[in-house]
């Protein structure tokens, strides 16, 4: 007996948008990074070696978590793009570049932990040469965000609500535009702390200094533009006036950029953010 004769309305196929989809390549590399915690978390428990006051595996684990969040976010965002041939091709390049970049970063940070040597700010000539080239790799990683942001920017005939599309474009582009100077300055200076005295008072988990300027605050805010601005976009979707919604997204994006710039200048001035 079929549904219609029973008096039920005909079954409606599940709408595509009800389930969170994701770009398979970016999602796979993101999940691979999460699985690689199976190596580093037990290593953290077994290893007694310390570097600059913390277990040698703390830094790789922070990198793994940050990279996994970044990759899974881009994977989910990618599924919101229109599925035309040009964008599919572009996503394939982004996926390939991010896969190679992620592998290089994790091998470098994990390998440094294995040999209990500093991956960043290491004066050894070979290590500092690798550090320099890893700057290029990191740039490739955030170029993925820029490429995807530009795709949202130009995808005006998208099925997405306009406020969300704009917020995705601005957030992704801002991640690149803000991270490049923040991380570039971090790399150019001899360390992430600015000022003295450094006695070791830090924010729990994040490890940011509570006594001197710490450029990693601005780096963190810059990277998370791709989360913060789309959240504003989601909020703006509730507004019935489209011009107002667009205005709110623009204002939110500019405000977030200003906040990041403030954290950057504050750290350069040697002031702690917390």
């Amino acid at each position, binding site marked *: 007996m079929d549904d219609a004769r029973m008096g039920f309305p005909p079954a409606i196929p599940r709408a595509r948008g009800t389930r969170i989809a994701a770009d398979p390549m970016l999602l796979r590399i993101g999940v691979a990074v999460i699985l690689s915690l*199976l*190596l*580093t978390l*037990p*290593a953290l*428990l*077994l*290893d007694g*070696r310390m570097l600059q006051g913390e277990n040698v595996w703390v830094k790789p684990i922070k990198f793994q978590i940050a990279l996994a969040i970044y990759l899974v976010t881009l994977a989910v965002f990618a599924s919101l793009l229109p599925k035309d041939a040009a964008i599919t091709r572009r996503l394939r390049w982004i996926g390939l570049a991010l896969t190679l970049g992620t592998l290089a970063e994790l091998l470098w940070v*994990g390998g440094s*932990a*294995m*040999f*209990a040597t500093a991956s960043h700010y290491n004066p050894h000539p070979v290590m500092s040469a690798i550090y320099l080239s890893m700057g290029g790799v990191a740039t490739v990683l955030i170029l993925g965000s820029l490429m995807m942001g530009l795709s949202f920017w130009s995808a005006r005939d998208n099925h997405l609500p306009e406020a969300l599309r704009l917020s995705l474009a601005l957030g992704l582009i801002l991640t690149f535009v803000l991270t490049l100077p923040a991380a570039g300055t971090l790399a150019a200076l001899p360390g992430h702390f600015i000022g003295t005295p450094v006695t070791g008072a830090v924010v729990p988990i994040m490890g940011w200094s509570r006594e001197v300027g710490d450029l990693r605050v601005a780096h963190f805010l810059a990277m998370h533009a791709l989360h913060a601005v789309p959240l504003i976009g989601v909020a703006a979707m509730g507004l019935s006036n489209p011009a107002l919604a667009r205005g709110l997204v623009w204002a939110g994006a500019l405000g977030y950029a200003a906040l990041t710039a403030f954290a950057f200048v504050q750290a350069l001035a040697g002031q702690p953010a917390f």
Partner: protein
Amino acid sequence: MTPETLFMIANPLALMGWLALAIAPLAPRLIDLFAGWVLPGILSLGYAVLMLVHFADAPGGFQTLADVQALFTDADVALAGWVHYLAFDLFIGAWILRDARREGFAHWVVLPILPFVFLVGPAGFVAYLTLKLLRRGIPSPDTEARHG
């Protein structure tokens, strides 16, 4: 955890796998998954973690036999080497049973080879290869029918 403690954890894990392989006909697919993939995977993961943590500080290396001997004087690296044996021997043991099923060997024919793979891995592997070659080289009327 001391290397002695980890050694006491790793050995029973591998032994469980071998006991499962011995009774594989009871649940071929499940036991193959458990003893052929999951347990070797867990042991290999343990090996990788041990090497990440201890290899850099260990003496010796791979260049000369004396280097390798020096490397294994480090208890943690010796443990990693042992876990490497356990993982790969078990994987080979499970592979032999899979291959034997494809070849049409009865379980009791391969069963006596398993202890050799467990205790003296490569010798057991050679024993299985010999069995396989003999079967191919001197076909019985039964296998002739199977291989066409």
